[in-house]
């Protein structure tokens, strides 16, 4: 299956199994002829543009890229990309993608999903993909609402949310998708936002460079049913003060003036302190132990007044796909290719003349 490739750009030992593009590609090469059908103003447009702009960077043959989605507004995504794609059923995209990726190491397989699709009905599949570390890139558009079904609360909606299904306010405590992924042994976990093209592109790049499952939460505005959910992170006047940009190896400092930092507390959590206070941490996304990344995931707008974006965790461990395919290669090399007639005759036979 190994393909000699002289791709420029992004690379990892699994991506290197995917055939290279015959030549340079542009955004247009990844744009399908289908009319885009989201509400005007929906954050999905910006994400689409960013992804279409990013894909050429991979330098791999367009026909070896596959996008699999579930159901939801976000899950319309594959239709708009001139790659192979499947718009499947609600919550099940990770299962389909797992079968595809593990049987076709020469493909780059992406999953697009929503907060409901991924965390409500599809939660189990998402988390099992993460623990297995299948070679998938999972983009979860988190608008904290069910868009397609017209505005019920989702597993990431804040408590007390008034929606069509909760006229008296929702009662469920939301998931923190980053904490959840880390608890499920994820090897790559990141967060970005629809409106910040440069940041999202950098996260996509890192995800593509990661061999194994990459989970990317993308804050996405649903201007129809949950408008403004991420406004503080977007508003020029506030965003620098409420956004902590995670950069591996760099100190955890933020603020318009770079005057705030993150330090450990006695109870094992993290707190915001002055940037020049002692003990301000340096971000380490590749620690073998996910505990500090987990602690970072507990830093939120609600509790700390600041939201980290960027890569929480990025560690390289064996992938399910490689191991599975290695077992096959090993079996063939040790035992030889299977011989069907030999197999079915088994050990004990008798012959009747």
């Amino acid at each position, binding site marked *: 299956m190994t393909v000699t490739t002289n791709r420029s750009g992004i690379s990892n030992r699994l991506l290197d199994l995917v055939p290279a593009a015959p030549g340079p590609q542009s955004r247009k090469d990844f744009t399908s002829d289908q009319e885009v059908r989201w509400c005007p103003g929906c954050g999905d447009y910006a994400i689409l543009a960013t992804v279409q702009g990013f894909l050429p960077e991979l330098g791999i043959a367009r026909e070896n890229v596959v996008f699999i989605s579930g159901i939801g507004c976000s899950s319309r995504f*594959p239709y708009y990309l001139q790659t192979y794609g499947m718009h499947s059923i609600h919550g099940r995209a990770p299962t389909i993608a797992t079968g595809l990726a593990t049987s076709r190491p020469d493909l780059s397989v992406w999953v697009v999903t929503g907060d409901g699709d991924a965390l409500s009905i599809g939660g189990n599949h998402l988390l099992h993909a993460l623990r297995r570390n299948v070679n998938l890139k999972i983009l979860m558009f988190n608008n904290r609402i069910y868009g397609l079904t017209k505005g019920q609360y989702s597993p990431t909606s804040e408590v007390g949310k008034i929606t069509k299904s909760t006229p008296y306010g929702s009662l469920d405590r939301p998931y923190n998708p980053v904490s959840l992924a880390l608890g499920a042994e994820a090897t790559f976990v990141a967060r970005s936002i629809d409106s910040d093209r440069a940041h999202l592109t950098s996260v996509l790049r890192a995800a593509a460079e990661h061999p194994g499952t990459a989970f990317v939460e993308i804050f996405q505005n649903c201007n129809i049913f949950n408008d403004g959910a991420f406004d503080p992170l977007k508003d020029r006047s506030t965003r620098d003060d409420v956004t902590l940009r995670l950069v591996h190896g760099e100190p955890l400092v933020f603020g318009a003036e770079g005057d705030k930092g993150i330090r450990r507390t006695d109870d094992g959590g993290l707190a915001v302190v002055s940037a020049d206070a002692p003990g301000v941490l340096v971000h380490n996304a590749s620690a073998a132990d996910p505990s500090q990344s987990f602690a970072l995931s507990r830093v939120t707008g609600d509790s700390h007044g600041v939201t980290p974006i960027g890569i929480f965790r990025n560690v390289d461990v064996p992938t399910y796909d490689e191991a599975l395919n290695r077992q096959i290669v090993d079996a063939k090399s040790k035992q030889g290719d299977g011989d069907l007639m030999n197999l079915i005759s088994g050990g004990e036979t008798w012959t009747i003349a």
Partner: protein
Amino acid sequence: MSEQVRERETRRLDRVVVRFAGDSGDGMQLTGEQFTSETATFGNDLSTLPDFPAEIRAPAGTPAGVSGFQLHFSDHDILTPGDAPDVLVAMNPAALKANLKDLPSGANLIVNTDAFTSGNLKKAGYATDPLTDGTLDEYVVHRVPLTSMTITAVHATEGSGGVNKKEAERAKNMFALGLMSWLYHRPTGGTEAFLNKKFAKRPEIAAANIAAFRAGFNYGETTESFTVTYEVAPARMKSGTYRRISGNLALSYGLVAAGELTGLPIFLGSYPITPASDILHELSKHKRFGVRTFQAEDEIAGIGSALGASFGGSLGVTTTSGPGVALKSETIGLAVSLELPLVIVDIQRGGPSTGLPTKTEQADLLQAMFGRNGEAPVPIVAPRSPGDCFDAAIEAARLATKYRTPVFLLSDGYLANGSEPWLLPTREELPDLRVSFTTEPNHTGAKGPEFWPYLRDPETLARPWAIPGTPGLEHRIGGIEKSDGQGNISYDPANHDRMVRLRAAKVAGIANDIPPLEVDDPSGTAQVLVLGWGSTFGPIAAGCRRVRAKGLQVAQAHLRHLNPFPANTGEILRSYDKVLIPEMNLGQLRTLIRAEYLVDAIGYNQVRGLPFKAAELAGVLEDVINQ
């Protein structure tokens, strides 16, 4: 009584049914399997029926914990594991209690007297000792102190040093096997070789078991309890090379073969469930055939992964039982809409719900037909015997790949675990199912060549299969209705109606690509037709034989394809006065047949978790014929 060794009579029989019964921990399945192996090598035709509790180790000594294995072997071809045992080996009182009701009077009964302690009698629910209270008067009883003789034999044997009492006692099943091997003149070399191999890492255990086995054999030779031994001559069977095979193993091999024959890698996405798990176990051994197995987090992920693999050009397979099919329903609907190949194996078991998980039943037929939202037709194939599972799996793969459709393969617990001699096919007898993917555009649009993923083959109505990695054919598919041909999302009313009918026509068209229904009517004058499907083939055929032997006429036909039915089915049904459909459900095929052909088919239905008995069906047939 006398000191003189009596001459023993050897009686020739044409067929024998033996049953081994003991505690779940007594190794009855192994004993039965090994006796079967000896019998197969000897050249008898045979059929087996294992029967075990749903618990891993149900409570020792109780009837609920009894595990049984029945074997029918003969000097002619046979069709069922036998209605009632000619000989029962009962390792303890619970085994006796649980099985005695099946034993016809006059049958041989071998009991392990050592196990008839007052504690065990109580656990088995016996108020008094059946060995002494007259319960067994109508049987030929052989009282054998099996446990103690085994321990003595083991401890007297060189090479079994280091074997403690408990381990020695565990060999008592081999004592029983030795005795039975002697009684029926079975060849013993295979068993000794088997034991040496099985316990290669613990030679002392191998020695102990062989000692017990020989002791059992010799016990028969020396005791006077047995005045008769039995011989069953080898069967005259079609010439060729045979092996013994169970349904699940044959089905697994059929899937591996389907991979070879289609030229596609097999991808199995599965979640363990009784009685289907063994297929997952078996296929996970065959990595050198390029078979990928994926134990998924649940049944939905199992089928999802298989469908994903099919999208990528593998032959996706998922294996499960009834409750798992229920969970897969939504994804099966997606597969119908995507029109991708997929083999869905359902090893039916007793339902509804968890039901009787280790017992057999045929009650998923209508679920397979209709268990999805919307109009979502899926072809259905069913094997008729353990060995036939091989061919049925290949046929399911043929339809799936040729017609780009999910296909149900409906086996059941009886076929799965039952076994029979299987005439090995030669490579040349296997069909060529090579598949070719689409690699070129198939339509010319305004701007030049295009790829239309739903442009159908005019003959099969199958759509093209263009897999990721094929340049220029990039396309998107999904579960929303698609425009005919082009395959873009379409909400157009007329298009939806057309697509619904096209999908139905594609599946219906398979009727032209399968053999016609064959009728077995030796006299050519029968007025009653028995129609069956799946694992009831053996009992039905055996029942027919019996009534024909009485001079009555009956015709038999058996459906391999349940959707669509063979093209000539209606014609055949209408040419008989009466149609009888025996099923291990409340009449599911009958429902389909009546709806399709308006034939007033009569049902004979039992939902007991057990296969039909030949005698029972013969009785029913006689009644129907004579009515």
